[in-house]
């Protein structure tokens, strides 16, 4: 039974995260931002960073910390705002997003002092890195978990499946892949571009497969805890690209775009009216 205040904490965080995402995208001006991909992962990030992951905000390089690898680097905005919510970075730091030469560029650059574990941007590479970490942890008999968040388009990359096979063969039970299944990729719907049966594919390679609602905090809180020993698992989270902003939802135009003053205000109003997006039980 998940406590109501855990759920509420994540809901409040999710709302804050969406507001910050909009603020930063607007601030980025003509550079634009990957808004759609950030908005779809908000609840996943909130739950992981506030409730599930074993981390020490004031000690980002604590060796026994759980590791989170943002393999879908274009989800950066959704990631940075979670780092802030968890206390790993300050608001001042967060607000340097997309400043030229800054530490928080459009896709994350590894910097352990900021809690950024991995340099994202090139799809299909993060699971391999995460599997290497998970393997190392097992060899050193350390109990931390490794989470790798990928996009559903991202699994088009063959390199992903090399690691999928490896992780199962090596029984990496301390490795969790998460698929942000918002059913869209840059040019449109995944169904139209490369259609696969996602659950069957992972199951075919021997992984444990769990499907859940990626915006339902209660479900996420129940799904994430991991005391399994029978090999790696994938959590296929059904999400909506651009979730929370009506004109961005399921729109390929908002994979990456500029947020003008008008649209920013419009989006903010929607958030204020909704007063929080995801409703968990």
């Amino acid at each position, binding site marked *: 039974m998940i406590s109501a205040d855990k759920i509420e904490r994540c809901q409040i965080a999710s709302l804050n995260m969406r507001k910050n995402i909009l603020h930063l995208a607007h601030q980025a001006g003509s550079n634009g931002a990957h808004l759609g991909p950030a908005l779809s992962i908000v609840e996943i990030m909130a739950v992981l960073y506030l409730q599930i992951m074993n981390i020490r905000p004031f000690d980002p390089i604590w060796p026994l910390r759980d590791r989170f690898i943002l393999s879908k680097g274009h989800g950066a905005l959704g990631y940075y705002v979670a780092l802030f919510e968890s206390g790993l970075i300050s608001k001042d730091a967060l607000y340097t997003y997309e400043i030229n030469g800054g530490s928080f560029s459009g896709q994350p650059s590894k910097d352990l002092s900021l809690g950024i574990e991995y340099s994202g941007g090139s799809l299909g*590479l993060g699971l*391999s890195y995460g599997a290497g970490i998970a393997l190392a942890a097992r*060899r050193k008999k350390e109990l931390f978990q490794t989470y790798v968040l990928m996009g559903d388009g991202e699994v088009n990359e063959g390199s992903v499946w090399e690691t999928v096979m490896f992780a199962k063969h090596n029984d990496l039970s301390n490795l969790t892949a998460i698929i942000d299944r918002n059913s869209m990729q840059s040019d449109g719907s995944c169904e139209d571009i490369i259609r696969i049966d996602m659950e069957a594919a992972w199951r075919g390679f021997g992984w444990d497969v769990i499907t859940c609602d990626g915006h339902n905090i209660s479900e996420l809180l129940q799904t994430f805890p991991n005391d399994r020993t029978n090999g790696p698992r994938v959590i296929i989270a059904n999400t909506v690209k651009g979730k929370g902003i009506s004109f961005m939802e399921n729109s390929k135009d908002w994979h990456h775009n500029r947020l003008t003053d008008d649209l920013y205000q419009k989006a903010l109003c929607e958030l204020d009216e909704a007063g929080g997006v995801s409703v968990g039980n």
Partner: protein
Amino acid sequence: MLEIKHTTIRTLSILGQRGAFGYALNELAKENEQIIALTSDLRTTSGLDRFNNAYPERVINVGIAEQNMIGIASGLSTLGFVPFATTFANFASLRACEQMRHHMGYMRENIKIVGFGGGFAMGMFGITHYGIEDVSSIRSIPNIAILSPADSLETVKATIAAAQHKGPVYLRLTGVMNQPMVYKEDYDYEIGKAVQLRDGTDIAIFATGGMVHQSLQAAEQLDKTGISCKVVNVHTIIPIDKQAIMNSLGVKLLVTVEEHSRIGGLGSTVAEVLTELDEKPPQLLIGVSNEYKPAGSYEYMLEQYGLNFMSITEKIIKRYGEVK
């Protein structure tokens, strides 16, 4: 650490560079628990059998998946392991080029990639297995040290140095079993410091890998015709030893020799240094011409591309005649 007797040196030369690497890794593993080997289904081919017998739990076989191998090595290194990931030079540098860029260049993880079959070592395995564009493929990626040992003893020293080096390394192995010895005695090896093997005043040859021995033989031939020839072993292509080049500016002809494409390897690296200088000797760039020729044995391929010492000598004499 390891005692370098002259029979050890001979043993290593008979093994060839791959076997020498395996030998070195085995020695390293005795003293350092963090040493780990990765292979993409090429454990035996990589010279890792003895290592595998001694430390089976420290060999990770990722199967035929070079791209994953680099990512796994990278992840392992974050917890302090020192991974040596081995495969053919081609597959490391071309199939997994972006992974090398990402994990070694961009994230600078402490991993060592060993590319064997550099040059034409793989003989009848054919063109797919000739590592003749590996250096050029990765040379422009920052932060990767590129090592290219001249013989088996140097391979051992390079492997040990790579393990101690803090940062990503690409170790390129050339030649076949029973590779001629360039070094008959132990010597000081330092990443980035080229070694002058022979002094001379008319010509300077900067060679790397298996071409060092060929160049030494060429220098002897040139000597007989009265041409005084210096030979420098460039065992580290990146970072290039600029001082070694500066020390050779007084010659009438500077020659570079590599078992690699003429485009983008050692010759290009040296040319890039020379291009900044106002006064410099002309450069003769000897390497693999920009074409694929039908496959054959190692010796045959060297002959086809003009990379045995006789061809090298001829090319040098011709060019020297034009510039002296």
